[in-house]
C-alpha cells in the first residue's frame, strides 16, 4: 500500500472500536425484542393448549412453537431494522458511508484476480456472463489492475472441451489474451474450496485480492473497482460481501424469486448487515477477499468426526468467514454495493436439488459451531442461522405432527381430568378458539409484515416504476404472497427429508445446476407424489377426525396435494414471459434494461455452439486448440494404453470409450492429434467415416472460428 494511501486509510483499531459498540447495542436490542416477543407468544400458546402444557405432547408443542416463533421473529425484526435504516438514508457505520465518494473514487487500486470456479455448468451462460463482467470492467478504464481466471473442476470431456474452446474464443473476441486465463484441475479434491485453494497455491501471492464469482454471477465494473478501493481504504477488512440480487429469470418461478429478491431483499440485507457489522458472513461468491490473510488462516481441514461430520467441509464460505474473524479480520456485508447479481434456479425441482446440497453443507456446520475453538460468538450464531434455515422445516413438521396427536387424543380418547395423581381438583381441557385465531393472526403478521414494509419502502423511495407502477406492484406482491404460500409446505416437506438424509449421511451427487429447463409432468409427479399422498392422507384423517381440524390443515395440505401441478406451472417460461409482457413481477433491469445483462445476452458465445468431444476430434482448428492446451501424460499411463484407447475409439466410434477413457485421450496431445488424423482417414463405412460424411453433407460450408 502506498504512503499516501496509508494516510487515507482508516486505522483498523479505531474503526473496530466504533462499530463494535454499535454492534453490541444492536444485538442486545434484537435479542431483547425477539426474546420478549417469543415469551409473550409462548405464554399465549400455553393458554391456547387444551391442558395448558399439562402433558408431554403439549410441552413438546410449546417448545417447538417457541423455537419457530423466535426464528420468525428474528426475520421480522431484521426487516424492521432494514426498513428503518433505509428510511434514515442507510447505516452510518457501513463501510460505504465511512468516506466521501470522491475520496473513495481517488483511492488507487491493487492487483486483483477475478475467479470463477465452474463445475459442469452451462458454458455459454457461465463464460458468457464472465465476458459481460470483463466488458463492464473494461468500460471503467481500470481493467489493467485485474486478471480473470476460469477455474474448472469439470470431469466430463464434453464439458471441459467446450470450456476450453469458449475460453479461447473469448480471448480472441475480447482481446483478453494474457488477462483471461483457464485452469482445469484433473484431481478435484475438496469441492469448490479445494478448487479455490489450488488457485491460491499457484497464483495467490501475485494478487492482493480475489473476487469470487459463481457460475451465474454478474457484477458491474464500477462495483468491482469500488470493492477494491474499499478494501484498500479499510485494511482491517478481510472479506467484503455484496448483496447479490437475482436477475435474468424467465420462468414464472425464477421471476417470482427475482421479484421478491429485488423488492424484499434490500430490507433484509440492510437489517442483517446492521446487526452483523464487521462479523458478517461470506456467501461464497460476489465478494472480495484479501488473499494474504485468507491463505494464512482459511485453509479448511477435513472434519475428524463421524458420519456427516467427517471429511471435507462442503459449505466452505461461512467457515472461511468465521476463520477470517478468528484471525482478527473483519467481514462485512455491504448492501450499498449495487450491480451485483446472480440467477435463481428456473424451477422448484432445481431449487430443491440445490437445497439438498446446501442442507448437507449447513448441517455439517453443527460440528463447527459446537466444537471449533476461539470463533467469534457472532459467527457461531451465523452457523446457527444457516442451520435453522433448514432445520426449521422438520421442526415445523414435528409441530404439525404433535398438533395432530393432541387433536386426536382430545377427540378419540377419554378426557383425563386428573393427569396428576396428587391434584385435588379436576383439570378441564379448555379450547379457546379466539386466542388461537389471535395467535395465528399475529404469526402471519410477523411473516407478511416485512413484505408490506418492503412495498412501503419501494413506494417511498420512488422505485415503483422499476416494479411496473403502483397497481402492478401491489398486485405482484399479492401474487408473490400466494405463490410463496403455496411453496412453503412443499419446501418444508422436502427440506425435512433433506435434513434427515444429511444427519444420516446419505450420499449425495454433487453436480452442476440446471439453469434453463422446465419441469415435465412425469418428473414433477415422481418428485412430488410422496408429499401429495402424505398431504391427502393427513387432510382426510383431519376431516374424519374433526371438520374444524380439517379446515386448519388445508393451508398446508392443499399445496402438498397439488405440488406437482404447482411445480410444473411455475417452471413454465411462457407464463413468466406472459406476465412480464403485462408488467407483472417486474424488476429494475427488466423495466429499464441493463447494459450488463445485454452484454451477457449478446456475448460472443451466444452465437456459436461450443465443440464437445466429437467435434473436437473432427474439426481441425478445435483439435489443434485442444492439442495445444493438452498436457502430455507422464509416468504411470503408458503410451501403449493410450494407443489402445485411440484404436478402440477408431473402431467403435465415440461410444467405444467411457468418460474416463475419453478424458485420457483428450488430455493427451499426441493421442488426441493422432485420433484426429486417423478419423479423417477412416473408411467411409466405419463409425467415424459415417459421422464425418454426415457432417460434411449437413454443413459443407461450416467453418470454425
Amino acid at each position, binding site marked *: 500500500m502506498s504512503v499516501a494511501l496509508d494516510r487515507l486509510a482508516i486505522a483498523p483499531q479505531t474503526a473496530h472500536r466504533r462499530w463494535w459498540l454499535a454492534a453490541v447495542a444492536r444485538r442486545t436490542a434484537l435479542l431483547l425484542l425477539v426474546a420478549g416477543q417469543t415469551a409473550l407468544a409462548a405464554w399465549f400458546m400455553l393458554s391456547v393448549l387444551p391442558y395448558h402444557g399439562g402433558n408431554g405432547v403439549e410441552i413438546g408443542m410449546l417448545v417447538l412453537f417457541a423455537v419457530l416463533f423466535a426464528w420468525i421473529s428474528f426475520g421480522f425484526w431484521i426487516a424492521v431494522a432494514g426498513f428503518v435504516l433505509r428510511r434514515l438514508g442507510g447505516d452510518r457505520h457501513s463501510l460505504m458511508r465511512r468516506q466521501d465518494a470522491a475520496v473513495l473514487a481517488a483511492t488507487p487500486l491493487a492487483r486483483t484476480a477475478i475467479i470463477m470456479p465452474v463445475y459442469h455448468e452451462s458454458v455459454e451462460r457461465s463464460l458468457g456472463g464472465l465476458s459481460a463482467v470483463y466488458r463492464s470492467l473494461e468500460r471503467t478504464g481500470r481493467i489493467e489492475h485485474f486478471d480473470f481466471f476460469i477455474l474448472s473442476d469439470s470431469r466430463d470431456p464434453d464439458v471441459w472441451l467446450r470450456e476450453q474452446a469458449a475460453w479461447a474464443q473469448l480471448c480472441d473476441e475480447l482481446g483478453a489474451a494474457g488477462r483471461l486465463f*483457464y485452469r482445469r484441475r484433473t484431481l478435484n479434491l475438496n469441492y469448490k474450496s479445494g478448487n479455490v485453494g489450488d488457485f491460491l497455491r499457484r497464483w495467490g501471492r501475485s494478487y492482493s485480492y480475489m473476487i469470487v464469482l459463481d457460475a451465474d454471477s454478474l457484477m458491474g465494473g464500477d462495483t468491482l473497482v469500488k470493492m477494491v478501493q474499499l478494501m484498500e481504504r479499510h485494511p482491517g477488512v478481510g472479506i467484503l460481501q455484496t448483496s447479490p440480487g437475482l436477475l435474468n429469470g424467465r420462468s414464472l418461478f425464477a421471476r417470482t424469486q427475482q421479484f421478491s429478491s429485488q423488492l424484499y431483499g434490500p430490507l433484509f440485507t440492510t437489517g442483517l448487515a446492521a446487526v452483523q457489522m464487521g462479523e458478517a458472513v461470506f456467501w461464497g461468491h460476489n465478494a472480495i477477499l484479501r488473499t494474504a490473510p485468507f491463505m494464512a488462516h482459511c485453509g479448511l481441514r477435513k472434519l475428524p468426526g463421524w458420519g456427516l461430520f467427517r471429511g471435507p467441509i462442503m459449505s466452505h464460505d461461512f467457515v472461511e468467514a468465521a476463520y477470517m474473524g478468528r484471525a482478527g479480520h473483519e467481514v462485512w456485508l455491504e448492501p450499498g454495493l449495487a450491480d451485483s447479481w446472480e440467477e435463481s434456479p428456473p424451477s422448484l425441482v432445481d431449487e430443491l436439488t440445490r437445497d439438498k446440497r446446501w442442507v448437507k453443507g449447513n448441517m455439517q456446520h453443527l460440528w463447527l459451531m459446537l466444537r471449533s475453538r476461539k470463533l467469534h460468538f457472532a459467527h457461531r450464531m451465523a452457523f446457527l442461522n444457516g442451520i435453522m434455515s433448514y432445520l426449521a422445516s422438520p421442526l415445523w413438521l414435528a409441530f404439525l405432527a404433535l398438533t395432530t396427536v393432541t387433536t386426536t387424543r382430545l377427540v378419540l380418547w377419554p378426557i383425563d381430568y386428573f393427569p396428576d395423581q396428587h391434584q385435588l381438583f379436576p383439570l378441564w381441557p379448555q379450547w379457546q378458539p379466539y386466542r388461537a385465531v389471535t395467535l395465528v393472526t399475529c404469526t402471519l403478521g410477523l411473516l407478511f409484515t416485512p413484505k408490506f414494509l418492503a412495498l412501503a419502502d419501494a413506494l417511498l423511495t420512488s422505485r415503483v416504476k422499476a416494479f411496473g407502477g403502483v397497481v402492478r406492484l401491489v398486485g405482484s406482491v399479492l401474487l408473490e404472497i400466494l405463490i410463496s404460500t403455496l411453496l412453503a409446505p412443499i419446501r418444508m416437506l422436502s427440506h425435512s427429508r433433506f435434513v434427515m438424509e444429511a444427519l444420516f449421511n446419505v450420499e449425495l451427487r454433487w453436480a452442476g445446476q440446471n439453469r434453463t429447463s422446465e419441469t415435465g409432468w412425469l418428473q414433477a409427479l415422481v418428485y412430488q407424489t410422496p408429499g401429495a399422498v402424505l398431504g391427502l392422507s393427513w387432510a382426510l384423517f383431519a376431516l374424519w377426525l374433526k371438520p374444524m381440524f380439517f379446515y386448519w390443515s388445508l393451508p398446508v395440505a392443499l399445496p402438498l396435494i397439488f405440488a406437482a401441478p404447482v411445480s410444473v406451472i411455475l417452471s413454465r417460461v411462457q407464463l413468466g414471459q406472459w406476465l412480464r409482457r403485462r408488467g407483472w413481477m417486474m424488476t429494475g433491469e427488466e423495466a429499464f434494461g441493463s447494459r450488463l445483462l445485454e452484454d451477457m445476452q449478446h456475448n460472443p458465445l451466444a452465437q456459436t455452439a461450443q465443440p464437445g468431444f466429437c467435434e473436437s476430434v473432427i474439426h481441425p482448428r478445435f483439435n*489443434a486448440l485442444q492439442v*495445444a*492446451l493438452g498436457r502430455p501424460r507422464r509416468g504411470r499411463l503408458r503410451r501403449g494404453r493410450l494407443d489402445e484407447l485411440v484404436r478402440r475409439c477408431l473402431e467403435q466410434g465415440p461410444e467405444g470409450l467411457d468418460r474416463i477413457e475419453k478424458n485420457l485421450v483428450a488430455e493427451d496431445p499426441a493421442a488426441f492429434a493422432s485420433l484426429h488424423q486417423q478419423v*479423417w482417414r477412416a473408411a467411409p463405412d466405419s463409425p467415424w467415416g459415417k459421422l464425418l460424411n454426415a457432417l460434411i453433407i449437413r454443413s459443407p460450408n461450416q467453418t470454425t472460428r
Partner: protein
Amino acid sequence: MRATTTEITLRRVLAWLRWSGLDITPQLQRQVLQAMTDALADNPPDLFGACLGRLAADTGLPPRATAPALSRGSIAYGDY
C-alpha cells in the same frame, strides 16, 4: 452408386481446409485438384495425407498462455 475413394478424399480435403478456416477460393480449389492429381500419380496408401502434405496449408494456431507464471504459495491450516 458408391462414391470412389478419390471423390470421398477430395470432399474431405476441401472440408478439412474449410473447417480449418481457409477460404475455398478458385485458386485454392485448383491447388487442391493439382495436389490430388500429383498424389494419385504416386498411388499412396494414405491419399488424404499425401494430398494435404502437398498443399502444406498453414492452419496452425498461435500459441496461447492458459495461465500466468506460477507464484507458488501455501495455505495454512489452523485449528478447527
